[in-house]
């Protein structure tokens, strides 16, 4: 079986379409790194500065009002305004310290009953992240992708990678292997049990898809490492997962992202492989494979547009195509990537694992029940 897997991988790698795809994917992955967007750190500081005057006005109005604790509230607001004033042009360490001061004031304001609305989860995470970073000796803030060390960048883009990349990778691998899988071909006639052939095809698709993605990462990861270093694995992050704050570090987020994406790739491979092989096997009609592949790619889009009730969405595999929901991402760029809604990592892996295994097992069982040597 290992011979067949090796042979399939070898042929897949030599397919021009596969090579072109890897180059294109590398360009997609590197795009945030090479594109010159304004740094979100500037935007973030700008957002504080915009509120400077209104904060001072609020402090003055509170002083004149008769609400309880008005003097304390006004003092806290004034302190926030002073912190904002000093943010402009501050270095990373001072900026984190000033932001932490602002956050602590904000928490005290909330404790005194001075809060506008329910604090959204992303705001909680941002606040907690700043406080955690402020405890570090040398805190750093990364305003844009090109500033990030390699591991942080890897972690961030991995966590927010479009699900289409995972689907397309498997489809491209399948297309690259298709010439070998024709009726009457060497693979079809090879002296191996049918289930071993299917398992080999599955393993080859998985290896090629994952390989394509990892190889596509290499140029930008090496470039980031040369420019900004690898980064500290113990650097803290606060993610909001399933509405709960979770303090993490880059190392755990990275492994979480990687595992989540690997599980996702397993599921996608099982889905595509199951459908393609099943249709080839039972119907022998290649055009049906294309229909199945299109359906699989369309279904998550439909879920996105139509929407599903939360209870159903929790058990839909397509919910987990956005792995940042439960794997987390680094949150240093304006804290935009936090996802307060969604499901937990545990539920996600259960759904992905269950459905992926079910599809694979059903395909293998079907192959066993209807023994033909056709793939």
């Amino acid at each position: 079986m290992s011979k067949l897997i090796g042979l399939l991988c070898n042929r897949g790698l030599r397919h021009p379409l596969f090579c072109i795809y890897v180059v294109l994917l590398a360009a997609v992955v590197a795009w945030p790194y090479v594109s010159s967007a304004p740094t979100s750190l500037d935007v973030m500081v700008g957002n504080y500065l915009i509120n400077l005057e209104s904060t001072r006005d609020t402090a003055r109005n509170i002083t004149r009002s008769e609400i309880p604790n008005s003097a304390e509230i006004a003092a806290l607001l004034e302190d926030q305004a002073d912190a904002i004033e000093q943010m402009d042009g501050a270095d990373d360490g001072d900026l984190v310290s000033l932001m932490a001061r602002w956050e602590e004031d904000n928490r005290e304001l909330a404790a005194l009953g001075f809060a506008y609305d329910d604090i959204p989860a992303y705001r909680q995470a941002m606040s907690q992240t700043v406080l955690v970073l402020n405890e570090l000796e040398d805190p750093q803030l990364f305003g844009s992708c090109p500033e990030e060390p390699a591991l942080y960048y890897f972690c961030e883009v991995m966590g927010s990678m479009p699900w289409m990349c995972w689907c397309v990778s498997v489809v491209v691998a399948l297309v690259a292997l298709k010439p070998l899988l024709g009726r009457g071909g060497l693979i079809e006639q090879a002296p191996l049990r049918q289930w071993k052939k299917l398992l080999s095809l599955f393993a080859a698709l998985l290896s090629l898809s994952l390989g394509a993605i990892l190889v596509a990462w290499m140029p930008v990861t090496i470039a980031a490492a040369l420019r900004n270093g690898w980064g500290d694995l113990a650097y803290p992050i606060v993610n909001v997962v399933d509405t709960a704050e979770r303090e993490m570090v880059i190392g755990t987020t990275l492994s979480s992202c990687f595992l989540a994406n690997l599980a996702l790739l397993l599921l996608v491979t099982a889905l595509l492989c199951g459908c393609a092989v099943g249709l080839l096997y039972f119907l022998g009609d290649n055009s049906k494979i294309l229909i199945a592949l299109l359906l699989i790619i369309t279904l998550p889009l439909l879920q996105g547009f139509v929407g599903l009730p939360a209870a159903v969405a929790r058990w839909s595999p397509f919910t987990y195509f956005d792995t940042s929901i439960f794997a987390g991402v680094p949150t240093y760029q304006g804290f935009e990537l936090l996802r307060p809604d969604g499901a937990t990592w545990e539920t996600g892996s259960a759904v992905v694992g269950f459905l992926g295994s079910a599809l694979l097992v059903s395909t293998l069982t079907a192959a066993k029940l209807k023994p033909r040597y056709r793939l």
Partner: protein
Amino acid sequence: MISVIDLRVGYGAEPLFKPLNAQWNAGEIVGIAAPNGFGKTTLLHVLGGDSEPKLSGSVKIDGCEDPDDPKFRRNVAYVSGGGALLTPNASVHENLAMAKELWGSTADLEALEQDCGIESFSGKRVADLSQGMRQQASLAAGFATGASTLLLDEPTNALDPNNVERFSALLRRHCDQGGCVVLSSHLLDNLAAICTQILVFRDGMPACVALEASGPTPKELYWKAYGEKGGTEPL
């Protein structure tokens, strides 16, 4: 090598011909002679283990009946007329190497390429070859598997006379070394030159006739089986 018992083949409920019973041993080259659309290719598929058009009966290759069993598959290779055995975007040599690796054979690929006359284009992609060259490469891949039983669907149709001679000799050598070949062809003179038996179907009834110097030729058998003036005398 091939044992066929009460084999009925067809795509609907109606079989293409009456039950076939045959025992083809090592050293034999069996030619299937039948008109277009009779079911020669379908029969070869079923002999190779394809279960779909098989209605009933059994096919055993070297005593093994389960086409999913590696033992069955290791001992048989089906070479179609259109080059379907080969991977089109790989070179001829790569295809031969794949065949050798998958079947675990001990074939000497360089010698095989020379014997088959394909060494001059073994580095070319199969997709870039002419029909005749592709047919040569397909037959070479069949030999590269090392399978003892070769099922060949119109193997010499696209070949020039030199290559027909070359492959006829290779098939004879394969059988001399303990192999067995079942092939279909409309080239009756070619069948006469290499076959030890001819399988024809008169009124749907299969008949396997040994070719002997004093006996009927494949051409005579063909016209007796399918010609308008075929008559009723025994084949």
